[in-house]
């Protein structure tokens, strides 16, 4: 932690220790998946947001609901960076780790800064739990923790003592121990308890004893920090100077759901969300199902194919059909997406990407569905592809997806990922009245002297969205190739080529409704860092950091992946090097090299984890210093070895 020393502006926080002000801090709660670490992290985030920090979070949990207690596989973590300045990521290195058991310590210690704080629940360091975590010696007794500021707290005992008079059973009291850790952490950073106390009250409204116990334990944790002589100082992270306005905290999945409801409002249309439960997209289905009074209809289909098929049926009927899934579901939907391309119906497909292939890493993030989204269907099958850059950008991007889908009569794939979906940031709440309406017209009159022509196009090559129930416009559509204009079944070779090229040209020429790219730095320089999707924060932060150090680097972040922004080709030529960091093996790089004949180098990471700022900085330095392989920058021996091997295999 870099200290802002003696900041007189720092507000006093309740406690008796000297207060050290910090520009930002990164903490991580880690414990068993049953220990309530996600809740503790979310509460710390809410409180930090409300006291006015900029925030960014990274929940990291196992795919198993309850892996065997105490094991490495069962560790669940929640990292948050909170700051007095603009931040773009959940933080690279952890200033304070709260580890509820040996397994949590083992899997998370490497993320903690040297001299960082490690708060340990010493009650959990029993012989059994040490063994489950694979520790041969107790790390509390050997040199494992040398150099860290270790705070040992008997959290189990103190939790039971705090709640012993509530009448709650032993097991239920044990479940409150996350509140002890949270209370202690609140004290350490001088945060108020009221947001969490209110949350407990609301959550356990029908179980007052549980609410009492949790509140008592939370306060006990806080008071323990105050009273016990464990810490030499407290920390304060002052308010961030964000643009004026009213803010809330939002995750990507929340923003996606809210964006859909808003899109329906802006279009004056019912939204019908058709989905099959899949991690990490299910929360979107849950969020929409809870908002039926907005007229949103949710359909939990029997499978992924049924979900997209139903959404196509919805669109055919004239409402807003949308389906949501993750990578494996995308694979199943591909034939039906082709049907929507062929019938030129509006359709929005949400892909919250996760680690693949196959079942892969369900709860971890990855960006490896880009080529699947752009190309992954039979035939020449173009769709628009839009990717959100931040959790709150999911709100804008999904509205844009509906706008493009309805204005161009096309499927639009909206790409989010596990990192954006579950990560949170502050969001300047928009004024709904100021958002542009989505204008939709359904024809009511015949468009040709010979009758209604379902494929008679306008100047943008868009066919009319005529819907059942309209007298005189009866027509048939389907997956078989149709004659342009009339929509009659046609096997004519010339017509097929014309239709294939027409569908391609329609997408290639569409006009983005939001920014097609986000730019950082001058439009000329030594290195352009080109990214897309959830890597925006790390790339932007690294670029700003490097520019402060005098490096001539800029960043370009693509929101539209298909079609690619019109200016992109000329922008790429203004830089000596192009670096493309991606959480895949180079999918955007493949597109860029192919399209623009630019010798872009990839920085490719597929660990189920987002990029850190330091990694991107290292990548830029590598390209400047000539540490490059045939395709990728040389940032670690392993990736270079693979890169060389792939290149050699191709020769």
């Amino acid at each position: 932690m870099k200290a802002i020393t003696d900041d007189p502006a720092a507000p006093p926080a309740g406690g008796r220790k000297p207060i050290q002000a910090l520009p930002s801090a990164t903490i991580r709660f880690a414990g068993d998946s049953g220990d309530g670490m996600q809740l503790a992290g979310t509460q710390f985030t809410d409180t930090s947001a409300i006291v006015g920090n900029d925030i960014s979070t990274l929940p990291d949990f196992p795919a198993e609901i309850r892996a065997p207690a105490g094991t490495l596989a069962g560790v669940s973590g929640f990292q948050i960076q909170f700051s007095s300045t603009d931040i773009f990521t959940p933080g690279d290195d952890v200033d304070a780790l709260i580890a509820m058991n040996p397994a949590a310590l083992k899997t998370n210690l490497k993320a903690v800064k040297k001299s960082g704080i490690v708060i340990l629940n010493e009650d959990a360091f029993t012989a059994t739990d040490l063994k489950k975590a694979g520790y041969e010696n107790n790390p509390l007794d050997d040199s494992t923790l040398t150099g860290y500021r270790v705070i040992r707290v008997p959290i189990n005992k103190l939790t039971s003592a705090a709640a012993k008079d509530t009448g709650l059973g032993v097991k239920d009291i044990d479940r409150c121990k996350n509140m002890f850790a949270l209370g202690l952490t609140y004290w350490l950073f001088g945060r108020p308890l009221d947001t969490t106390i209110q949350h407990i009250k609301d959550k356990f409204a029908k179980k007052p004893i549980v609410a009492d116990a949790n509140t008592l334990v939370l306060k006990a944790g806080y008071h323990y920090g105050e009273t016990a002589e464990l810490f030499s100082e407290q920390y304060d992270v002052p308010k961030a100077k964000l643009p004026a306005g009213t803010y809330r905290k939002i995750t990507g999945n929340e923003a996606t759901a809210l964006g859909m409801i808003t899109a329906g409002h802006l279009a004056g249309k019912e939204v019908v969300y058709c989905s099959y439960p899949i991690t990490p997209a299910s929360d979107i289905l849950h969020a929409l199902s809870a908002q039926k009074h907005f007229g949103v209809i949710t359909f939990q289909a029997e499978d992924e194919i049924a979900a997209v098929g139903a959404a196509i049926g919805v669109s055919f009927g004239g409402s807003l059909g949308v389906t949501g899934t993750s990578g494996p579901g995308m694979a199943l939907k591909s034939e039906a997406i082709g049907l929507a391309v062929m019938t030129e119906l509006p359709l929005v497909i949400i892909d919250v990407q996760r680690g693949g292939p196959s079942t892969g890493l369900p709860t971890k993030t990855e960006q490896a569905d880009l080529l699947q989204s752009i190309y992954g269907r039979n035939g020449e099958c173009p769709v628009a592809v839009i990717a959100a850059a931040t959790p709150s950008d999911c709100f804008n991007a999904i509205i844009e997806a509906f706008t493009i889908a309805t204005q161009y009569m096309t499927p639009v794939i909206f790409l989010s990922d596990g990192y954006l979906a579950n990560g949170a940031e502050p969001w300047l709440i928009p004024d709904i009245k100021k958002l542009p309406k989505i204008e939709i017209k359904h024809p009511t009159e015949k468009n040709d002297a010979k009758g209604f022509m379902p494929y008679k196009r306008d100047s943008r090559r868009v066919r009319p969205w005529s819907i059942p129930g309209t007298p005189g416009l009866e027509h048939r559509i389907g997956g078989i190739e149709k004659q342009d204009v009339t929509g009659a079944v046609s096997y004519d070779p010339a017509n097929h080529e014309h239709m294939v090229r027409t569908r391609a040209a329609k997408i290639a020429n569409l006009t983005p409704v939001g920014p097609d790219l986000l730019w950082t730095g001058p439009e000329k320089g030594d290195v352009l860092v080109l990214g897309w999707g959830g890597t925006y924060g790390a790339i932007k932060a690294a670029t700003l950091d490097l520019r402060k150090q005098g490096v001539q680097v800029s960043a370009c972040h693509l929101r539209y992946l298909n079609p690619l922004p019109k200016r992109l080709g000329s922008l790429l030529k203004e830089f000596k090097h192009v670096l493309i960091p991606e959480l895949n093996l180079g999918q955007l790089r493949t597109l860029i090299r192919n399209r623009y004949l630019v010798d872009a180098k990839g920085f490719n990471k597929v660990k189920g984890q987002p990029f850190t700022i330091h990694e991107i900085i290292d990548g830029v330095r590598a390209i400047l210093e000539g540490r490059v392989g045939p395709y990728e920058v040389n940032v670690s021996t392993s990736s270079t070895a693979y890169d060389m091997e792939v290149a050699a295999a191709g020769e």
Partner: protein
Amino acid sequence: MSIAPSSQPLNVLKPADYGTDQDVRWCPGCGDYSILAQMKKVCAKLGMDRANTVFISGIGCSSRFPYYMNTYGFHSIHGRAPTLVTGLKLARPDLNVWMVTGDGDALSIGGNHFIHLMRRNADVKVLLFNNRIYGLTKGQYSPTSEHGKKTKSTPMGSPEQPIRPATLALAAGATFVARSMDVDVKHLEYVLERAAKHRGTALVEIYQNCNIFNDGAYEHLTDKLVKNDRVVYLESGKPMVFGKDSAKAIRLNGFVPEVVDRAACKADDLLIHDEKLTDPTLGSILSRMSYPEFPEPMGVLRAIEQPIYEDLVRRQNRDAITARGAGDIQALITGDETWTVG
């Protein structure tokens, strides 16, 4: 009846008015022609509003059907028509929606969707053309082909047991299940009309002859010389009698049906058909009766009233509005916990 008020005067349209100008591309002599003709007759008889009527199909010979109906139509992808009709009914409960499918489309590639369509009870009419063969792909066995069936893909005979569409539909909870035959035009028309008037998912299984790849698949039932002995026409509230002079009947022995000589049996012992039974067991027993042990039942096996899916879904929206008021978008996106800067 699911047919919305017509924007056209009743009985003005003739069956031919429900046809399109598209060339019908089924093989000459195909049973599909008869089904198309009876469907148009029923449309005209019931005065169906073309603008409000939609035919949606999957893939296969049967699934070309929408191109030949001058209504709204959607020829979708293999096996997935149930998903489109479900979505369409959720969005547009006002439409008169018909689905056209075949034995391969509904029961092989679309088997999963078929089950869920039957159990949800959206207000959709389903015409299942069962020709017990794959026609469009030129003659492989289908899920309804009989055990031992020799086809291009089973030159030594199919080792599989056939699925019975009506039995499957009843097991899934279908509220209306009926059966007819392509050549039995009057009966087919009657059954289609009954289906049209049912509120909920109505499955009509139609025994249909593929004269190219499975010619005569139902000759054992349709041949005039033997039809009387091999088909029993169901009438709710009446005993199941068949044969020359209705001399034969069906009796239940426990859960097992048996053919009896009507004259030798007390009237009370004969099995009386009841399409309104809540319990699907009788329908299921009937659906499994087949040649040569039994006459095959034609008609309505089951027709019960149950709430329809799209109504139940939309009722939840209305209930939510009643309980919470119509949603305020600005309040929703603002949420419960905010802070103000500046």
